[in-house]
């Protein structure tokens, strides 16, 4: 166990984590270093295109097992179960208003692409293998939690408040069409799944064509992106107004709880070690790209500063630095 952990934690001295730390410290110290918004978004698009495509190619090589179906269903189930759990914990430990509570819950039911990408590097460095289709599972886990969040927002509205809210909603409720679009046609879902299917269709031949783009510079681009993430996370933390201690604690224990659910589920459905580790990481991670935009639309009365700070400035750094190696080590012990 000590060995497994110590191998896992060599991650701490990887360029990835170090560049993240550089950004984080720079912003904490109030350096003006910044990555232009368009560049950050471009790097995120690259990472999604590349990880989706590489997953697809590896599925084209390995063939599609029935495991994909089982794992996807498990992933979607986690995407509903985790928000319910998160919502309950938030109700018990914080005094967030009901809309913000539901919105936060949705973030934790969803996933973070960059956390997943960083985890694949750690898992590979530990000598573990994982199934290419885990990328598709990730894409499928991205948005169901949006629905879970909205249902929680409606169910949890207290009686009197509910009437007022009901009146509003008749007038200005977000139309279901808009919501469905956020869930099924969310930009990152479309890009991840699209690139995944293009990888399946073009297979190794496609990899020969665009491998030098999606493969060779991948880790370097991830480092630059993590530098940006570090800057953004620390700035959020510095400027966060409404962050109470119970909320910050939630940002640490919630990923651990969700990870437990994930590692057990992954082991039970019989995934191999690397894939269990990745399902655990997906469970533990919280969205900071796809879900925030959707929540702004669907629950505009929720406090955006809260859910962005929690997922981006608390849970993401925790997962990147401590969570990923920990989850991978546990997965190896349980499923290895």
């Amino acid at each position, binding site marked *: 166990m000590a060995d497994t952990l110590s191998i896992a934690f060599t991650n701490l001295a990887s360029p990835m984590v170090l560049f993240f730390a550089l950004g984080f410290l720079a912003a904490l110290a109030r350096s003006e270093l*910044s*990555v*232009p*918004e368009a560049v*950050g*978004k471009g790097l*995120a698009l690259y990472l999604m295109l590349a990880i989706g495509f590489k997953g697809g190619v590896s599925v084209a090589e390995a063939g599609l097992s029935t495991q994909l179906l089982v794992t996807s269903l498990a992933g979607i189930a986690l995407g509903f179960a985790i928000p319910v759990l998160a919502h309950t914990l938030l109700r018990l430990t914080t005094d967030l208003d009901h809309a913000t509570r539901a919105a936060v819950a949705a973030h934790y039911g969803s996933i973070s692409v960059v956390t997943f990408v960083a985890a694949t590097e750690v898992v590979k460095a530990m000598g573990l293998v994982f199934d290419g289709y885990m990328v598709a599972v990730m894409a499928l886990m991205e948005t169901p939690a949006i629905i879970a969040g909205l249902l929680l927002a409606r169910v949890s509205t207290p009686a009197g408040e509910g009437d007022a809210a009901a009146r*509003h909603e008749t*007038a*200005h409720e977000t139309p279901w069409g808009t919501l469905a679009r956020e869930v099924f046609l969310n930009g990152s879902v479309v890009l991840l799944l699209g690139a995944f299917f293009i990888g399946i269709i073009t297979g190794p031949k496609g990899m020969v064509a665009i491998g030098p783009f999606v493969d060779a510079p991948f880790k370097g681009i991830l480092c630059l992106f993590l530098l*940006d*993430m570090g*800057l*953004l996370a620390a*700035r959020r933390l510095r*400027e*966060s*107004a409404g962050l109470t201690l119970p909320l910050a604690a939630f940002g640490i224990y919630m990923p651990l709880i969700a990870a437990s659910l994930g590692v057990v589920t992954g082991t039970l459905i019989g995934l191999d070690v690397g894939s269990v580790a990745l399902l655990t990481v997906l469970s533990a991670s919280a969205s*900071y*790209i796809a879900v*925030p*935009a959707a*929540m*702004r*639309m669907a629950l*505009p*009365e929720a*406090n*955006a*500063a809260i859910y*962005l700070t929690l997922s981006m400035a608390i849970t993401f750094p925790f997962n990147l630095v401590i969570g990923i190696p920990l989850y991978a080590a546990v997965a190896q012990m349980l499923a290895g």
Partner: protein
Amino acid sequence: MAVSTTLCKRLELIIARPHLQIFAKLFETAGVTGWTAMKTAGGTGTSGIWREDQLTGADEHVVVLAIMDAAAAEAVLEEISTLFARYPGVVSVTDAQVLRPERFSGQPKKADQ
């Protein structure tokens, strides 16, 4: 004046970018003939500070500028004040002189649109 100008209303709206389509729909329904959304770099308000270099569009604002006649302005303000119960935002209305006033007088659409 050598060129004749007409008095109109200049409405300026500061909202979260993800809500732009909702207010655009409001303008369309109220018969506003046009609007322009302007890019922002940051700001502060009751809910704290924000700046543009964020990955997620959730925390970005736009300033929407729309010129319309007084009747449209009144109708639009009424609608906006209802929307503001749910969607946060800031609105202000200024008198402005325009050329070609016929450009700014549209027909409100029926609600059944």
